[in-house]
């Protein structure tokens, strides 16, 4: 049995058509045509225990809607799903003891109170034993380094501090599955890195299964081993991050730092992406010229001080998948 099993899951919303202008608004008062929007359209996948899966797609792809069905918030229009062997919308409360959620756009922390107060309340929400609760809280306070601001009202915390408390809150009851919907939204680079490490380390140490949605491909690279890409509610791709790179990487970036001020490589499929004195970045089309040929040419081109070969950013890879390339 998979930890998360989704089979032909569908969610259709009925959306009112908005008429233009004042006349349209008045007509709409008496008759408003509606149309069906298929937010999730026959999605099928399976996630095993301890896997960390990125759920990726553009805005409106159906990522959040899927997570909301898997957590029992929304009832599906069709298809089936099981989380830890339970149908989420039928056994919502039973299941809720076993998963944690972080919705980056919402909070479960009380805004005017310190996070410590919410943590105390969560003990009652999840019917936790006092000793277990204290032990877990101590572990999380240490791991997430939230001790210094645990007793400060949440409204006075930075977004990064708040999100650390938010994730700690979602892990207090020792969940087996963690659903994260845009957990790094709005965070700066440092805060993002901290949050990513915390999620990955917690999952590794405790075998927590993670399903994470994000627009930030860095989240999926740093946290997850597998990626599911959806668009218009349909599955576009389901494979490991490694395999994704191998399949979709058709370009590489070669950066040369040289003793000479300027260096050129005259090969088909090799273009200059950036140029500065002593530093040149080439973009290599691997279908035209293999990267080892470019490296050999670089060695001949001038006195080399440094050479780096990089994959393109994950953002480009995902865009290529959306574009069907």
């Amino acid at each position, binding site marked *: 049995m998979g930890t998360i099993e989704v089979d032909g899951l569908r969610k259709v919303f009925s959306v009112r058509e908005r008429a233009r202008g004042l006349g349209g608004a008045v007509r709409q008062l008496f008759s408003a045509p509606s149309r069906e929007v298929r937010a999730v359209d026959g999605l099928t996948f399976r996630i095993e225990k301890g896997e960390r899966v990125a759920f990726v797609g553009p805005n409106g792809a159906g990522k959040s809607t899927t997570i909301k069905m898997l957590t029992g918030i929304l009832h599906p229009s069709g298809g089936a799903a099981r989380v830890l062997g339970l149908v989420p919308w039928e056994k919502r409360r039973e299941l809720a003891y076993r998963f944690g959620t972080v919705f980056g756009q919402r909070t479960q922390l009380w*805004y005017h109170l310190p996070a410590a107060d919410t943590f105390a309340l969560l003990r009652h929400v999840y019917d936790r034993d006092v000793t277990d609760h204290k032990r877990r809280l101590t572990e999380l306070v240490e791991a997430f380094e939230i001790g210094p601001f645990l007793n400060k009202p949440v409204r006075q915390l930075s977004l990064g501090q708040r999100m650390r408390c938010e994730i700690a809150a979602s892990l207090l009851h020792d969940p087996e599955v963690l659903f994260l919907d845009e957990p790094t939204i709005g965070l700066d680079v440092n805060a993002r890195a901290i949050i990513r490490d915390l999620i990955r380390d917690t999952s590794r140490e405790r075998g927590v299964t993670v399903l994470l949605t994000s627009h930030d491909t860095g989240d999926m690279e740093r946290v997850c081993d597998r990626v599911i890409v959806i668009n218009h509610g349909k599955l576009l791709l389901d494979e490991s991050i490694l395999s994704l790179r191998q399949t979709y990487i058709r370009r590489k970036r070669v950066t040369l730092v040289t003793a000479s001020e300027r260096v050129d490589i005259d090969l088909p499929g090799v273009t200059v992406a950036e140029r500065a004195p002593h530093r040149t970045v080439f973009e290599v089309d691997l279908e035209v010229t293999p990267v080892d040929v470019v490296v050999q040419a670089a060695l001949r081109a001038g006195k080399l001080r440094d050479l780096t070969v990089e994959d393109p950013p994950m953002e480009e890879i995902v865009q290529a998948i959306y574009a069907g390339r």
Partner: protein
Amino acid sequence: MKAAVQYFGAMIATNLRASMALRGAFWTRTIFMFINNFIYLVMWWVFFDEFSEVRGWMLPDMLAIYAVAAGVFGTAMIVAGGVMTLARTIVQGDLDTFLTQPKPVLLAVVASRSEASGWGDVASAVVLFALCGYVTPASIPFVLLALASGCIVFVASAVIFHSLAFWLKDTEALSRHFLHFLLAYAAFPKTVFLGWLKVALFTVIPAGFVTFLPVDVVRGGGWKVLLAALGGVVIYGSLALLVFRAGLRRYESGNRFGVRA
């Protein structure tokens, strides 16, 4: 059961801490609500200076009505303040947080907010009960039960009207108007309403169960009246649960950014 009581207690305690966190706002709202209740009562004071009674009701009876109304409304605002914003919570998709927790959603959402103004209502209720002269040490348990029944019916009717948001979307203003109707009728002697209006006040706008019957209990109505009031609790409580559960199946969530205040 013990866990449920502990959860509800912890929820209310957290709420109270949240509503008292901003000290200035807490005292301002409490004091103004206290003053506000007595401003309305002045009208009846002036009235009974000229006329001795209204269909058998005199000034102490009016004080009892105002005491019950303030007690019912104030308690509801302190322990179940979330009900007053339930329609907005539904429309903006803010039920998500409650739905991912293993507790009854309705209980969690109504208990998720405490209004400081409720303390002003409760304080004025205590003063009004003392002034009306009906309450004796022996009748206190009856009075408290009557207040609890009125409070539950008030919260249940608010749940029913706010739950219309599951079907009609933005119904917050409609729900607020309904509750103002309810409170406006609830602050009059029951004897001034006759015929269909009286029927309506024991059905569609249940002012009868919110204040009329509890006031009768306060005035010495005894067990039978109290049982009738508790009957209202069962009917309106069940109806609220049914409507909310039916609506929950239509819940559409949302993507708004939000905080939990």
